C-alpha cells in the first residue's frame, strides 16, 4: 500500500503562504514529516491561488527535493506545468492526473514514457463526467489500459483511479468504486495499479478520520494499491499496515507497523 502524502498543497493555508513568501520551512517540514511517517510519494499541488503556477511548481519541487529524496506526484491540470516539473524531478515521478479523454491521453502518455514517469488515469472523461456505475467506470479504465499498451507505458506504471465522492452527498458511489477496483484488477495481466484520492470521501463530514480509514481498508480488500491521503494520520497508516497483514500480503511480525512506515508499501 503506497501512501501518497497529500499535505503539500496550496489549498492549505500554510503552504499557500509559504509559496507567496518563498518560505521553504513549512514545505520542507511537511516533506520530512510525511516521509518519516511512511509516505511513499509526496503530492505537489500549487493550489489555484498561486499567481504564477509554473514558477510555484518549480519552486515547490526544488524545495522538497532539498529536504527529502521521496519521489514526487505532480498534481496539476496544466500539462505544460507538469512537463516542466518532470524535468526537475530527480526520481521518476507520478503524473496526477489524466482523464480518459483521447486528447488528454495523447498529451500525457507519451510525456510519461519520455520522462519515465507513472500516470494516474481517472475513470472519467469530460464528456461523461464521473460515471454513476461501475460498468461505465470500468469501460473508461479499459480505454486507459488500451492506451497504455498503445503508447508503450508499462501497465505497472498506470494507476487507475475509480473516483470516490463525499459520502454525505453521493452515498451510492462508494460501492461502485469498490466494484470498479475489483474489475480493473481483472482487465489485464499484469493488472494496472490503482489509486484513490481518499480524503475526498469525508469532505464536510464529521468524524473524517474514521471514515477515511474505514474506506481505505475496504478499498484495499477490493484491490487498491495506493491512496493520496494524510500520511501523518497515524491511525490511518496503522490501519493500512494492518490490512496488508490481514490480506496476507506479507509475513506477520510484531513490528509490522514500524516496518510499514520505514519501507513505505
Amino acid at each position: 500500500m503506497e501512501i501518497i502524502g497529500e499535505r503539500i498543497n496550496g489549498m492549505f493555508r500554510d503552504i499557500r503562504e509559504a509559496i507567496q513568501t518563498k518560505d521553504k520551512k513549512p514545505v520542507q517540514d511537511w516533506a520530512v514529516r510525511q516521509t518519516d511517517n511512511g509516505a511513499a510519494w509526496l503530492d505537489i499541488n500549487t493550489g489555484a491561488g498561486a499567481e504564477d503556477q509554473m514558477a510555484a511548481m518549480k519552486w515547490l519541487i526544488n524545495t522538497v527535493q532539498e529536504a527529502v529524496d521521496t519521489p514526487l506526484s505532480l498534481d496539476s491540470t496544466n500539462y505544460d506545468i507538469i512537463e516542466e516539473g518532470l524535468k526537475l524531478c530527480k526520481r521518476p515521478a507520478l503524473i496526477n492526473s489524466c482523464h480518459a479523454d483521447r486528447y488528454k491521453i495523447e498529451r500525457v502518455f507519451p510525456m510519461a514514457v519520455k520522462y519515465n514517469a507513472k500516470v494516474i488515469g481517472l475513470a472519467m472523461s469530460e464528456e461523461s463526467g464521473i460515471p454513476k456505475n461501475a460498468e461505465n467506470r470500468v469501460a473508461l479504465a479499459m480505454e486507459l489500459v488500451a492506451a497504455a499498451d498503445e503508447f508503450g507505458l508499462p501497465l505497472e506504471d498506470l494507476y487507475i483511479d475509480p473516483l470516490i465522492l463525499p459520502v454525505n452527498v453521493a452515498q451510492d458511489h462508494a460501492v461502485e468504486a469498490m466494484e470498479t477496483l475489483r474489475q480493473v484488477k481483472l482487465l489485464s495481466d499484469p493488472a494496472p495499479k490503482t489509486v484513490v484520492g481518499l480524503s475526498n470521501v469525508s469532505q464536510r463530514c464529521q468524524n473524517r478520520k474514521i471514515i477515511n480509514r474505514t474506506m481505505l481498508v475496504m478499498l484495499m480488500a477490493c484491490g487498491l494499491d495506493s491512496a493520496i491521503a494524510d500520511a501523518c494520520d497515524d491511525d490511518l497508516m496503522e490501519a493500512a499496515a494492518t490490512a496488508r497483514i490481514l490480506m496476507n500480503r506479507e509475513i506477520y511480525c510484531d513490528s509490522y507497523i514500524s516496518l510499514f512506515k520505514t519501507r513505505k508499501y
Partner: protein
Amino acid sequence: MPVQVLKDRNPSSVITVTLGASKEQGGTRTTTVKVGGASSLPFLHFEGEAPNRPVIAMEVVDRNPAEWNEEVRKPFEGVLDDPAAWAKKCVDECGADMIFLRLQSADPDLGNSSPEKCIATVKSVLSAVGVPLAVVGCGIDEVDNAVISAVAEACAGENLLLGFATQNNYNTIVAACMVHKHTVIAQSPLDINICKQLNIMITEMGLPPEKIIIDPSIGGLGYGLEYSYSIGERGRLGALQGDKMLSMPTLGTIGMEAWKAKEANVGADEFPGWGDQAERGILWEATTAAALLQSGLDILVMRHPEAIRIVKKNINELMTKNSL
C-alpha cells in the same frame, strides 16, 4: 507436443552474505565463502539466478563428544580430543567449505572452560584451516555472552559467523559482531514471525542485513522436517517478494538433528526390519539435508563424511543448469 514452461518472475532476491575474511580484508582466511543471492525458488535455474551454491559446514566440538553415535565418531578417531586436528581432517579429507565449531566445553557441566581457553581453541582451529569459521557457544545465555564476546574481540576482523542471537538474548552478541566485524546467526524457534521480528531488532541495533544468517531451526527426518521445510519455503518466498527482513541466507544444523533420531541410532539387532544401523544413520542425515536443500537452505551443518559425500553429489547435480 511442445511443453510451455510457466515461469514466475520474482521482484527480489536473497541477500548475498560473505563469510570469513582474507588477509586483504582484515582476516587470515585463505578462502572465503559467499552464500545467498538466489532470485528464484531453489534450483529453478530457468526462473532466476543462483550465483552461490549451498555450502557444507562441518561440525567440530571442543570436547570429545562421547554421546555421539559410534558411527559418527569412527571417522574422526584420534582427533576427537583435538579440535584443530579434527577441523583439518574435515577440510583436507571431506572437503568442508566451512568449520562449525561448538564451544560446548564452556558449559559448567561439560568442562567449564574459561573464555581464555575458548579463545585459544578458536585460534588453534583458525591456524589449522584456511576456510571460514562459524563459532557458537554452549547454549547457556550468560556463559555464551561472555565467551562469544571474548572470541569476537580476540578474532576481530576474521568475519567469523557467531551464534546464536535469539529473541531473548541478542544484544551482546550483535554488539560484538558490529564492533569486531563478524556475522551473526539469528536463531528462531521454528517460527517465521519471530524470525522476521528478530531480524528487525538486530538491524535496528545497526548491524546490516548483509551481516546476518538466519537459523530458522530445523527438525530431522521424522521429527518435524515438514515444518522446517514449509518455514524455509515461506521465508524464501517472502525474500523473493521483496521482504528484506526475511531475505538473509539460511543455516540448518542437519547433523545434530538427524543424529538425534531414534531411527538413526538403534541397531538392527533391536529392529531387524530397519536394516544396518550405520548405513541407516548416514542416510538419515543425507536425506534430511536433501529435503532441506529444496526449501532453500544455504549452509548445511553436517557431521558424517559419507553423508556429506552423498549430499555434495546431490548439490552438484542440482546446480547443473537444465535445458529449460
